């Protein structure tokens, strides 16, 4: 009955309720849209880097991360493979050996990242085969290079051409080699697309003079959510004096922080928006409280406790707010869903916009994230706001004198 009473009270002044609900719905709609895009863009960007390159976690020699030097490579043994595979949550692994090199075509040079991988394991983890846009992915006997189209463009080389790689190998030996371009790759992340050169691992080991070594072993983990548990398990099972485990957040701390910064500035905007909406809702509550003081007096007069009355009024206000959340969510969901399926393509804004995004290592698309957490967060925010606002009628009811309230009515 209390719920019925509260619900009917809301609809006593339809116009006012509609305005209030609309204002909350507006805030919720806007917050959901903004956060979905924000979250979508960053997740997309982080996923680009994490899924296509780092992997969710890596095992490295304990000093490798600091120095990123071949001299800090780990010895990749069958024993290590077995140890890692034994860790629950680890589906597979991809050993890599990587270092910078100068790549030269017939006339051009360009600094690149040379990365030696196991063709099958790498495809398992990062779907590398799917990135081949021209030529063929490696077969068992391949010794050639797969380069990104960005590198190919810089070096002015194409399929079947030869590139020269120059670098410093293991323990300072000179590394030099000629490799045929067997395929072209394309990465969405502009940052990766302009610098990646892949070699089969044996070829790369030869090039770097680093037989049996790997700079990192990327681990295949099913989802982001499992990462902390797997990391903890790995800490237990490996020799931490020799090896170190790195989670994806550790490997791209700047991006993670930049995401937080962006989220913080968005939250500021939303906070202000909600504050203004709060004022509006408070106005409604103010009027509602005043015009019902006679009724409140009667109810207390006939034996209703003040807390019961406050509970009804609280329920009304919270219902009003949550109704706004519901409407806002219903309006925003299709929109968010649409943009999740069809990301906003900024390339229509012209070449300059595309370049700007590329400069920041982003693809010029804005996909939205569909995340029920965003909707729930809005509901919680509105719930808290309305509960706080219900303090006002509560205070009024607490000090209400039924006789004078009825006289004024």
């Amino acid at each position: 009955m209390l719920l019925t009473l509260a619900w009917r009270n809301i609809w006593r002044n339809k116009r006012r309720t509609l305005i209030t609900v609309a204002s909350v719905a507006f805030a919720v709609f806007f917050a959901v849209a903004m956060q979905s895009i924000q979250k979508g863009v960053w997740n997309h960007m982080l996923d680009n880097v994490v899924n296509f390159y780092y992997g969710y976690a890596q095992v490295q020699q304990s000093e490798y991360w600091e120095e990123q030097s071949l001299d800090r490579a780990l010895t990749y043994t069958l024993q290590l493979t077995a140890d890692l595979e034994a860790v629950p949550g680890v589906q597979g692994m991809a050993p890599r050996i990587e270092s910078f090199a100068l790549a030269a075509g017939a006339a051009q040079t360009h600094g690149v990242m040379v990365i030696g991988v196991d063709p099958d394991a790498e495809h398992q983890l990062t779907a590398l085969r799917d990135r081949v846009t021209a030529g063929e992915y490696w077969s068992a006997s391949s010794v050639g290079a797969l380069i990104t189209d960005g590198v190919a463009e810089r070096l002015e080389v194409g399929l079947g051409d030869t590139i020269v790689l120059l670098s410093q190998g293991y323990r300072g030996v000179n590394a030099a080699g000629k490799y045929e371009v067997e395929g072209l790759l394309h990465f969405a992340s502009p940052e990766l697309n302009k610098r990646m050169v892949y070699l089969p691992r044996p070829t790369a080991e030869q090039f770097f003079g680093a037989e049996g070594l790997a700079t990192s072993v990327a681990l295949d983990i099913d989802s982001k959510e499992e990462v902390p548990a797997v990391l903890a398990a790995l800490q237990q099972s490996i020799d931490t004096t020799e090896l170190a485990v790195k989670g994806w957040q550790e490997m791209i701390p700047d991006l993670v922080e930049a995401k937080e910064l962006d989220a913080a500035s968005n939250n500021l905007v939303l906070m202000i928006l909600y504050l203004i909406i709060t004022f509006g809702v408070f106005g409604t509550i103010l009027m509602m409280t005043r015009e019902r003081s006679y009724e409140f007096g009667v109810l207390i007069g006939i034996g209703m406790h003040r807390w019961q009355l406050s509970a009804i009024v609280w329920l009304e206000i919270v219902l009003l707010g949550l109704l706004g959340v519901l409407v806002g969510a219903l309006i925003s969901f299709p929109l968010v869903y649409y943009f999740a399926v069809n990301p906003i393509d900024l390339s229509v804004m012209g070449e300059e916009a595309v370049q700007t995004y590329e400069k920041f290592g982003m693809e010029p698309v804005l996909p939205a994230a569909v995340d029920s957490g965003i909707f729930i967060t809005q509901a919680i925010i509105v719930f808290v706001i309305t509960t706080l606002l219900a303090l006002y009628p509560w205070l009024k009811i607490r000090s209400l004198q039924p006789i004078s309230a009825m006289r004024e009515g």
Partner: protein
Amino acid sequence: MSIIQTRGVTKVYNPDKIPVHALRGVDLDIEAGEFTAIVGPSGSGKTTLLNIIGGLDRPSDGAVSVGGTAINDLNDNQLIDFRKDNIGFVFQAYNLIPVLTAQENVEFVMLLQKRSPEERQQRSQELMAAVGLEDQINKRPAEMSGGQQQRVAVARALAPKPTFILADEPTANLDSASTNNLLDIMARLNKEEGVTFVFSTHDQRVIDRARRVVTLDDGQIISDEVRGE
């Protein structure tokens, strides 16, 4: 023993500034089954007396007991519960909850008393029938006439089986026909069910039908007349 007993009740408003003596020592006894009108000109203190008897207001001095309970010793929350279980109120106007139907209004106090749904249902229907509104139970107050609203208010006041019903100017906003109808119902309830009624009024139609008339002036009882049938 009287169901309502006041001894030396005084009420002073504004004691710090310009004191207004609304009641100056009222001794009143009301027995079960009475049909009593408290009358007097505006400012005579009748509403104050009614508020004090009803536990809505506290006397500045003196003692009030209702059904043997000294209500001036109760704290606010106890008083609310006491009112809920022992006193039925009928106010001047607008005293129904506008968003509830007539029957729901009658059930409301029983809900606060945590009665079972079956009991609420049954009793509210009985009471609606007793006030002659069995065909109006699903109407909201705004859809009913003033007289009908007041009859619902009487039904609601009776719902918790109170010791007595307190009615503050119940006919003030009603036309003659509605007034007579309401008074008929109250008189019948009084006679057949033994419900005790206490009114404040200055409506002659009500005074004519009262069996006891207590007249107040300037905060004191100046006459107390008991009439036969």
